[in-house]
């Protein structure tokens, strides 16, 4: 392709420049950097023309130009040079590193900055980290990459969207997810499964108040900015093609292997008196299988594939990036998979020297299915209760039963999935465009519009051939449309006074509108699998429709000042108005102040050779949270129906005083770079959330059980640490380990109704003033070895004192009663320590990467054990082998009490340490050497690699998956691991 382009150029040149032919000559030379190493790919262009070449792998070039013309040598990260063609035919050039340009340009609120000019704490992760990961959700690769950003994926469904938090849980009632922006415009967390990871240039996380305050009310929980690739100016076009294929398995099988086998289970049933020996033997005579049911509820080796093609490049004025991608992954449960097609076109251009414009458009078309049988269903979540002596394989056919599995008396999961199909497909579009004017130097006016919209169609059916409802099927069709449009207009003016005082003044206005509508049609009574449309069902015809919307309008401004790029200060102010709050409380104002001291630039540190960089920052500011329902402030009358006529009733009492949740946060941080190898960042922060939006409990006699009010306050404080060390570095090799983690403590500082504590009913979680959010449960005191009783510690008698844990071995009882025995277990609800570490290494063409993510101090109530370790509550259903350790005679020290006492209650035994360490990534790859590639003439790069995701998990948690982001884990669809192989080619 390059040859053809060259050919055309040359031909063109020959045709046009014939007259000057006599004076044209061939100039050759070598371009090297300051260390003497050759620079390949440097643009060598005759100024003002399209006559250009690039240096080869050895830095050599040759170009035909007229004597007297100017040749421009340019390369990203280096200072451009121009040389006039004189009498000599050789021009060698040494390019110097452009310090400012080489440092990353970082995306911040409504703009970009050089990294050296950013005042607050901002973390940037390159898009390379996200590429080639066998997961539909791009944030999976971010787990453990940014200190303070905690990401948990609570399900192994391929379309699972992770939960994200920055620096702890910001609110006890409203949402805690950071604001997510795609190319500057707000999107929802679902975007993570709809983007092509290869389209992403980088993800930036804004952590500190001085950076987030410009986003005002939505930024109390931090800001995550996704920037898509845009190509580079003056870059030769390059085309990338990547293919990856592999398969998935359950990430951690320990739990699934812990159920009893036929021998253990049948003997246990007889020993505990559930069934007589004769009856048991009678059953075993007919059913003598030894089934491990998880192997029939979950697949093994489910395939996953990705294909990507992209092209990017740029001229002096325009740059572009276009791409297409395909992703597919089958889930391990039945009726579970995810397919996605992506298309993107990003274009930025300078129309003239004072006007530029850009347009990014991304399309995603996805189809997905989800296994619906969740926590409490014996069709998957509790399917392991199935007795091991029954089998889903029909002995006559050797295949699975197509219908009910005899003995277990439930439908075979494959049959169930086939007869109850579900298909959802979504067409999503994310265009964003802007026009920017620079009428005078330093003044930038920008007007931008962004859209996040999708249409989704879902089809649910129950086939008439389904034995559960023979010849009486059902069909449901749903349509949903979501639209979020943002219009923002900003103006920024930068100027310098006396060359050392640099000032930027920035102001803007933004308006956002979101609406969604959803309707569906349903009918039943279809009799034939081939005639399954809505009109073919004569019964139970129904239509349902719902609509909802919110809007937000804001004004904001920022003043930035720096003295000689050494001392920085900025001040931000923003006012937001939201439709979610009562008329009297619609608007709120937020502010922030930040300062930065680039200490290394001081004279007294200039000579300290081992210190490459030292930056100290501090900032304080406010932001708000409005992440509640759209209409909570109104007293509303809802509708129902009687005898076909509409009826009214009081649906919600409303709260006209409802207003913003406000947060004040302060932080200080230090960044050091030592001996050109060590890069360390440490930040300490303190967030106080006040006027928290909490669903305050009301007595049922009022007619309602809770009302959303602004009450109470919560504090989160802790520190973020990130460290990267170039342990080994040489010409051919590099080894760089890194670690990033956050330690966070939360503390409830005030509650509602003057309370000192509040136990949220039926969750085990409690808010205690002055303490972190904790678990309150009866505390198990062990099995009495003398009589096999199960025992619990009596809490302090005064109900106000149950916040103080009491475990007195002389004060125990064998009567279980949640209300009477619950007390502070001292166990925290939220894990304090989260982070990741890893290693990047390369040697010649080989590269090796591994990344681990961990969470320490995570505690989860294992609700699965209530079903699987409770034989007298669920007699006849399989249990785990742990129940074999039950009390039989005086003197026994066992896990479980006597057979006639309930083995498991909802008490502290179920609160397990779910801390975990996962090897998120292990990649080994090889970049083919350029000597090999040059032989092809057109390939610029090629690499092959093997990569694994979630290959290893270390945890003490006894349930299926410790990563569930909740207080309770039940019937979780477990996270998966992948082994894949891939090839990337560059042209």
């Amino acid at each position, binding site marked *: 392709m390059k040859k053809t382009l060259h050919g055309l150029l040359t031909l063109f040149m020959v045709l046009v420049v014939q007259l000057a032919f006599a004076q044209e000559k061939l100039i050759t030379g070598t371009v090297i950097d300051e260390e003497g190493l050759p620079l390949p790919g440097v643009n060598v262009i005759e100024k003002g023309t399209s006559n250009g070449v690039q240096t080869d792998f050895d830095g050599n070039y040759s170009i035909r130009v007229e004597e007297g013309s100017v040749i421009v040598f340019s390369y990203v990260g280096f200072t451009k040079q121009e040389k006039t063609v004189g009498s000599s035919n050789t021009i060698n050039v040494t390019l110097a590193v452009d310090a400012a340009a080489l440092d990353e340009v970082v995306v911040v609120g409504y703009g970009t900055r050089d990294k050296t000019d950013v005042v607050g704490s901002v973390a940037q992760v390159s898009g390379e980290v996200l590429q080639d990961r066998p997961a539909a959700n791009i944030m999976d690769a971010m787990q453990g990459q940014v200190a303070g950003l905690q990401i948990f994926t609570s399900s192994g469904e391929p379309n699972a969207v992770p939960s994200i938090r920055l620096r702890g849980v910001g609110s006890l009632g409203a949402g805690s997810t950071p604001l997510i922006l795609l190319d500057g415009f707000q999107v929802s967390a679902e975007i993570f499964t709809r983007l092509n990871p290869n389209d992403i240039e980088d993800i930036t996380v804004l952590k500190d108040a001085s950076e987030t305050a410009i986003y005002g009310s939505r930024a109390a929980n931090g800001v995550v900015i996704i920037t898509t690739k845009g190509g580079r100016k003056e870059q030769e076009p390059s085309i990338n093609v990547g293919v990856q294929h592999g398969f998935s398995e359950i990430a951690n099988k320990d739990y699934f292997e812990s159920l009893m086998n036929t021998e253990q289970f049948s003997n246990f049933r007889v020993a505990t*008196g559930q069934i007589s020996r004769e*009856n048991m033997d009678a059953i075993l005579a007919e*059913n003598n299988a030894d089934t491990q049911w998880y192997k029939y509820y979950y697949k093994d080796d489910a395939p996953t594939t990705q294909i990507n093609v992209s092209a990017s490049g740029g001229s002096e004025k325009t740059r572009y990036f276009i791409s297409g991608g395909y992703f597919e992954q089958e889930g391990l449960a039945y009726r579970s998979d995810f397919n996605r097609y992506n298309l993107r076109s990003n274009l930025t251009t300078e129309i003239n020297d004072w006007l530029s414009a850009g347009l990014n458009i991304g399309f995603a078309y996805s189809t997905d299915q989800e296994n619906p049988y969740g926590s409490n269903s014996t069709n998957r979540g509790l399917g392991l209760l199935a007795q091991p002596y029954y089998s889903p394989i029909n002995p006559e056919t050797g295949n699975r039963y197509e*219908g*009910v599995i005899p003995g277990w*008396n439930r439908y075979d999961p494959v049959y169930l999935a086939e007869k109850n199909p579900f298909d959802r497909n979504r067409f999503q579009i994310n265009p964003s465009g802007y026009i920017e*004017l620079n*009428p005078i130097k330093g003044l930038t006016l920008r*007007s931008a519009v962004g859209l996040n919209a999708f249409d989704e169609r879902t089809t649910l059916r*129950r086939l008439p051939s389904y034995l*559960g*409802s*023979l*010849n*009486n099927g*059902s069909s449901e069709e749903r349509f949903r449309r979501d639209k979020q449009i943002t*219009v923002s*207009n900003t103006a920024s003016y930068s100027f310098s006074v006396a060359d050392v005082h640099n000032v930027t003044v920035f102001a803007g206005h933004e*308006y956002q*509108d979101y609406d969604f509508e959803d309707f569906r049609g*349903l009918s039943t009574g279809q009799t034939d699998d081939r005639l399954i449309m809505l009109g073919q069902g004569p019964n*139970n015809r129904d239509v349902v429709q*719902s*609509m909802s*919307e919110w*809007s937000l*309008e804001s004004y904001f401004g920022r003043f930035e000042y720096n003295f000689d790029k050494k001392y920085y200060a900025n001040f931000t102010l923003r006012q937001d108005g*939201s*439709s979610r709050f009562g*008329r009297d409380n*619609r608007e709120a104002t937020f502010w922030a102040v930040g300062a930065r001291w680039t200490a290394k630039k001081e004279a007294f540190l200039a000579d300290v050779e081992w210190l490459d960089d030292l930056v100290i920052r501090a900032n304080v500011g406010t932001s708000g949270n409005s992440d509640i329902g759209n*209409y909570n402030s*109104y007293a*509303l*009358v809802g*509708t*129902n*129906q*009687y*005898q076909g*006529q*509409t*009826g*009214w*009733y009081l*649906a*919600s*009492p409303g709260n006209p005083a409802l207003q913003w949740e406000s947060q004040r946060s302060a932080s200080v941080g230090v960044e050091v770079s030592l001996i050109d190898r060590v890069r360390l960042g440490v930040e300490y922060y303190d967030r106080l959330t006040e006027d928290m939006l909490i669903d305050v*409990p009301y*007595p049922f*006699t*009022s*007619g*309602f059980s809770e009302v959303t009010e602004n009450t109470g306050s919560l504090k989160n404080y802790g520190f973020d640490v990130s460290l990267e060390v170039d342990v080994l570095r040489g010409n051919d090799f590099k080894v760089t380990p890194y670690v990033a983690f956050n330690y966070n403590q939360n503390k409830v500082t005030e509650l509602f*109704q003057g309370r000192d504590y509040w136990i949220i*009913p039926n969750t085990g979680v409690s808010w205690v003033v002055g303490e972190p959010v904790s678990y309150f449960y009866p505390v198990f005191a062990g099995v009495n070895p003398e009589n096999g009783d199960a025992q619990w510690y009596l809490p302090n008698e005064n109900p106000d004192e149950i916040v103080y844990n009491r475990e007195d071995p002389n004060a125990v009882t064998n009567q*279980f009663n949640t*209300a009477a025995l619950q007390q502070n277990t001292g166990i925290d609800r939220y894990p304090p320590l989260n982070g990741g570490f890893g290693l990047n290494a390369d040697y010649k063409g080989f590269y090796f990467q591994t990344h681990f993510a961990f969470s320490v101090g995570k505690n989860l109530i294992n609700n699965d054990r209530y079903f699987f370790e409770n034989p007298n509550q669920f*007699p*006849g259903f399989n249990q785990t082998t742990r129940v074999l350790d039950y009390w039989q005679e005086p003197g026994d020290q066992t896990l479980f009490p006597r057979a006639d006492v309930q083995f498991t209650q909802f008490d502290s035994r179920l609160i397990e340490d779910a801390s975990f360490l996962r090897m998120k990534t292990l990649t080994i790859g090889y970049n083919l050497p350029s000597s090999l590639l040059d032989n092809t003439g057109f390939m610029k790069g090629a690499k092959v690699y093997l990569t694994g995701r979630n290959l290893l998990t270390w945890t003490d948690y006894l349930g299926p998956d410790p990563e569930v982001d909740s207080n309770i884990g039940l019937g979780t669809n477990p996270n998966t691991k992948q082994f894949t192989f891939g090839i990337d080619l560059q042209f």
Partner: protein
Amino acid sequence: MNTLNIKKIFIGLFLSIIFVGCDDLERFPYDAIEQSQSFQTINDAATWNNGLYANLRGVVYGEFMFPTDVQADQLNATLDYGNRNGNPHRWEGFLADDYTLRNLWSAYYSLISDVNVALEGLPTIATNSPEEAAELERYIAEAHLARAFYYHNLVVRYASDYDASSASSDLGVPLMLEFNIAERPARSTVAEVYAQILSDIEAARPALSQVDGEQGAQRFNADVLLALEARVRLYMEDWAGAKAAADQLINSGNYPLIDNEGDFSDMWVNDYDQEVIMQLFVEAPNEMANTNSIYLGYNGATDRFTPDFLPSQWVIDMYEDDDIRKDVYFTTDTIVISGLEYTDLYMVNKYPGNPALFTGANTNYQHAPKVFRVAEMYLISAEAALNTSASDALAPLNALRQARGLAAVNVGGDALVNAVREERARELAFEGFRLDDLRRWDLGFTRRDPQDESALVPGDNYYTKSVEATNPKFIWGIPTNDVIVNSNMVQNPGW
């Protein structure tokens, strides 16, 4: 210069764009309206009235009916019952934070607050004609009667039995007569609650007596008012008043008793309404009621039944073979429990589901909830008579017995009392009356004589359980939420 002019144009355009996108921030939902806007015309009143009945449909049957039967002596848990309703069945471990008692309490109070909002708003509606005024009066009356119904159910379940000597000091339930979300009410006495119930019935009487009763009525009318009054006065031990109201219904001749198995089965399967004083409207798929699904557990694919609860043998033996109720209330079929098949066990078949309401090929146990039926009136009349002039009990008792295929009796004294009680147990079995009846008669119970132990959950709290009449859990505890959030709320003893 041209460039400058173009620049100016652009800047001008740009500035004008700034004002694009301003919009107001008022957003209202699409599926609800503001409360203050909902009491404007007589149509609004009619709409509130419809809402009242739709809500009433949501608090009868299902978990508003069977938990007390599960708690009582007539049912046994099968091995496949999966701990559903396990706590009420076992009594031990049945605590104040249980969803069973919380759902009932919160549902009734939620509907009471609806009625209170309606009673405040309806009178403010301007009417344009005497017909409209009469219509509005009727809506107000219906709201009063609904509130009486809810308070009656609450005080029977959550407060001590009515005892004339202590009713003015026994704690009843809190009386909310106005919508006020901030209120933290204390419990009124049992006497006060019953006084309020009777007062609401009286407030409803003038307008509702203009509405004639009819078989299978779907809204309140004069007969429904009498039926509720009879029931309330029976529990209040106002024997004369209860008998008068019940007899008025019996003698009206509007609801002749069914005397053949065909029609009787029709009543429980197809919602045949000859005997029914009030039966709420149900229609698939949008207007469905709660279901009593614990009794059958039918699996269409295997054509087998796996009920959660089976009746004890002594319950089935209460019915003679000629009793038309026996084959309607019970059935045998192939049952599968814990992998074993049983073909000769009786299941409760009172709620098999009305085929006209099925949403699939197999039953969904839906049928029109029978809120008041005339057989209960016969039994109220008989039981009330026992306490005034015992021989007057024979007429209603025998009328019912003979209609059901049994011979008349002619006994007196304790034998008559037992005959009336047994007839009530036979007729109203599994309709949610059993536990309250035992309480009213001051009786404990012993579960005994199960059908087949190998299909049932063994243990102390199951098919051999004995409960004394003084056990505090005959009365349900106030839900923990209210006890904690409302410091004026006093919990029932033993909870």
